[in-house]
């Protein structure tokens, strides 16, 4: 067996969490946590560097027996769909630790342990090749996330934590039933690659599609199962928001790509119009809600719903452009929205208010902060030259090719995005410097820059030279579409 690089990536944060438990000083905890996230990022970069873009097969595959009596294996592997998310998770893990450096001032050890445990589980979700392993990681994430929101969150944290926990749990339990049904349909195996070979009858596919849909739609979240998101985001500490928006939301869409499309192709094609309609609705609905927010975090949270609408729209357009765009857009959204939550967190640390009305003229007080903020705001509204432009353009081209009406609605949603983002930026950063009179706002320091810069690099890199990223995605997308269309037989 080859060098177990993926195991190292998955278990490095967990090892760090275990070591943290024995440390006493808060500073030691912070540095060790930082060390392990850096190490993890280095492993992830090594993985991308060794990634072969010419094949759609799983790479870095590891397989060990786990529960042989039930056909459960500990199997890891990445392809073009998951490789970027493994990297994104490692990157945002590092950003989260930096973002919590002083923002978390009590129970630091428990917080960092939860954060690192969370990171291991998220990496497990993206690299699992065994459905049981996937489900275990998927569901186990609830424990650290529940604590991160509930212990270190804002005033309404308990309610938000409960809502997040119960929503996601209820959603994923039906998925569990679907997984077990699939296990028996596939001849007692949890092997994801083997299950992709199945050709199930249409009615079975339909039932499974909806069982999976509930779980994935809650995570994405798709309207109308999105109501946990604003609460969770607003109450979560900054690092929690970054993880939620940057990684957790991607998991729902990743679930569609990894399971629904290849395993249930006929149902995916049959219900694609419905899914695109839901996505288009989410784009506009999320945008309109964001337009009406006064709370910075809520605004970004609702913008996430809108942006994730683009992602699901691209997926169910079921054409190469749409799929490529949505995978790239997931990566972009992780970078950009992660950064926006970071910025909201940074300013909240200084002023302890998130109300847009309290701000104004921030540019005069903190020019570097507002400068970078502008960059990510522009990226979020998909200005040409930034990362989201490439992703959104691809998604829209795919969307128009699949359905003219939904494409048009999505373009309208993109306009809305410009309206609420620019409006927000105008009120916060421009105008007379009212904010300096009331709050002592210092500009960003070195540690904060260390969190911001890597994200800013990807805004430009993907925006100006997306080829390496698309190359990673490309062959897997082609293969996925082949899987869908080869077996697609309607009712």
């Amino acid at each position, binding site marked *: 067996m080859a060098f177990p690089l993926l195991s190292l990536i998955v278990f490095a944060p967990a090892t760090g969490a275990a070591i943290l438990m024995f440390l006493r000083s808060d500073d030691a905890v912070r540095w060790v946590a930082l060390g392990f996230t850096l190490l993890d990022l280095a492993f992830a970069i090594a993985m991308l560097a060794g990634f072969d873009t010419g094949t759609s097969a799983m790479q870095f595959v590891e397989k060990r027996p786990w529960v042989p009596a039930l056909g459960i294996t500990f199997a890891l592997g990445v392809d073009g769909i998951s490789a970027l998310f493994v990297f994104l998770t490692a990157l945002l893990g590092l950003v989260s630790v930096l973002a919590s450096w002083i923002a978390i001032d009590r129970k630091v050890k*428990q917080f960092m342990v939860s954060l690192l445990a969370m990171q291991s589980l998220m990496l497990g979700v993206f690299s699992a090749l065994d459905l049981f392993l996937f489900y275990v990681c998927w569901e186990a994430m609830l424990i650290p996330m529940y604590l991160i929101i509930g212990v270190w969150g804002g005033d309404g944290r308990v309610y938000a*934590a409960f809502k997040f926990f119960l929503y996601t749990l209820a959603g994923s339990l039906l998925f*569990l*039933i679907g997984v077990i049904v699939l296990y028996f349909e596939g001849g007692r195996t949890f092997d994801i690659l083997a299950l992709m070979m199945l050709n199930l009858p249409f009615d079975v596919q339909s039932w499974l599609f909806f069982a999976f849909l509930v779980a994935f739609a809650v995570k994405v979240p798709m309207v109308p199962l999105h109501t946990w998101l604003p609460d969770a985001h607003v109450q979560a500490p900054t690092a929690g928001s970054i993880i939620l928006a940057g990684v957790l939301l991607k998991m729902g869409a990743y679930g569609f790509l990894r399971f629904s499309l290849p395993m249930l192709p006929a149902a995916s094609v049959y219900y694609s119009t419905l899914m695109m309609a839901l996505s288009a609705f989410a784009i506009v609905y999320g945008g309109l809600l964001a337009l009406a927010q006064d709370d910075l975090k809520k605004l970004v949270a609702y913008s996430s719903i809108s942006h994730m609408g683009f992602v699901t729209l691209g997926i169910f357009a079921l054409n190469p452009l749409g799929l490529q765009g949505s995978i790239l857009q997931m990566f972009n959204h992780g970078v950009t929205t992660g950064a926006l939550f970071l910025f909201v967190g940074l300013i909240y640390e200084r002023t302890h208010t998130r109300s847009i009305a309290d701000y104004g003229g921030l540019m005069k007080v903190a020019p570097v902060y507002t400068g970078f903020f502008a960059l990510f705001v522009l990226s979020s509204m998909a200005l040409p030259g930034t990362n989201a432009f490439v992703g959104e353009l691809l998604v829209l081209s795919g969307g128009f090719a699949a359905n003219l009406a939904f494409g048009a609605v999505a373009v309208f949603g993109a306009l809305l995005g410009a309206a609420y983002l620019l409006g927000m930026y105008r009120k916060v950063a421009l105008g007379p410097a009212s904010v300096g009179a009331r709050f002592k706002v210092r500009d960003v320091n070195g540690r904060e820059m260390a969190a911001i810069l890597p994200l800013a690099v990807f805004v430009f890199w993907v925006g100006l030279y997306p080829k390496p990223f698309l190359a990673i995605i490309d062959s897997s997308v082609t293969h996925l579409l082949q899987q869908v269309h080869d077996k697609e037989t309607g009712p």
Partner: protein
Amino acid sequence: MIAAALLPSILASLPEIIVITGACILLIAGQLTPKGQGAVLVSAAVAVVLLAALATFTVSGAAQPAYADMFVADPFSVFFKSLFYLAILLTFLLSRNYAEIEGIAGSEYYVLLLLALSGMMIMASATDLLSIYVGLELMVLCTYVLTGFLRREQRSNEAALKYVILGAVSTGIFLYGVSLVYGLTGTTQLDRMAAAVTGDPLDPGLLLAVVFIVTGLVFKIGAVPFHMWVPDVYEGAPTTITAFMSVGPKAAGFAVILRVFLNPLVAGSNVWIILAVIAVVTMTLGSFVALVQENFKRLLAYSSIAHAGFAIFGIVAGGADGIASVMLYLLIYTFMNLGIFGAVIMMRNGNFSGEVIEDYAGFAKLHPGLALLMLLYLFSLAGIPPTAGFFAKFYVLVALIERGFVLLAVIAVLLSAVAAYFYIRIVMVMFMREPERVFEPALTPLVGTALAVTAAGTLGIGLFPAWFLRLAQQSVFGG
């Protein structure tokens, strides 16, 4: 029967003989030891159990029928006996300090626990309705007394009285069913019973008999509609006894139910429909009523009702996987439930009882390590991976879906989402509230050992279930 013919039977039942003899010796010796020698009593009781365990594992192997087929020492009974040993050893460890605080640490306490153990062991091995009855009565008579052991406390007395009256009624119903079976088939031996019936298994007389037997047994595991005694008895009994009853006697009840219900006679009478209804109603009631409990022991009582419901789903599934799933469920439940009860027992210190959920406010701030342990048990009870509680539920669901009961599986998972709420509410109280008072749990080395064992089981089986799964699958009888 001559002595030589009796010898194999005696050998097969050696563990039971050791426990009963040990209990009798301890009863006499306990009167002779001076007061305040609790440590000696505990060690002696532990020694008896270990000796019995040794005997169990030495004679284990192929199935050995004994006493004219009324008794059998087979892998199935060995599995359950090991579970009982584990439960009672952990109970001993947890009892030492608690019993001193409550002033109930006499030798009778340990003797009664040992006698209850022997009853449970007989139940696990019994293959005749009459030997089942003997084991059952031996077990419940001991637990009646132990429930009322807090002599000066009204709740305890009330609980014991309720338990005796309801228990006696249910035993009477069970016996009535047995007598009907004997009248119809001319035997009470499980295998011969099935062979004697050649006609329609849905014969009204037989059906009536089966329903009576079901009623009597379902009472013992606290399933709806015969669950009324559970919350009161669990709340009133000394916490150590509650902990023991929630795992040991309950598992013994399941052992008997598995043997009786999967008997061809009973299995042929479509009894699974009754069981499916019982399982759904039991889980529903347990989960929803637990939502509003403020007393920790009462909450755990309803939680144990809900868990019994989930385990019954495994019986509904039937087959080798169904039986193995129930057995694995009970083993895992033993670890996690004794763990959470151990934590509650540990809180009993000085004038602090730790019985009200609000008592745990801010516990994570005062004792982060212990709070983390409780978090583990609670999430395991809620069935969240990577804990053992998830794997237990997962395997039951696999067994259900294997038989095509997808709808029942959906009901089961939706109800466990409801149940998750009250477990994570306790987590919320511990982690997300500020402490209102400072208290010191009685973390003696013995309690610490018990907590370490249960935590290792709860996390270990969750991460590495393969060995335990195989153990359960190999211990299934007849397969």
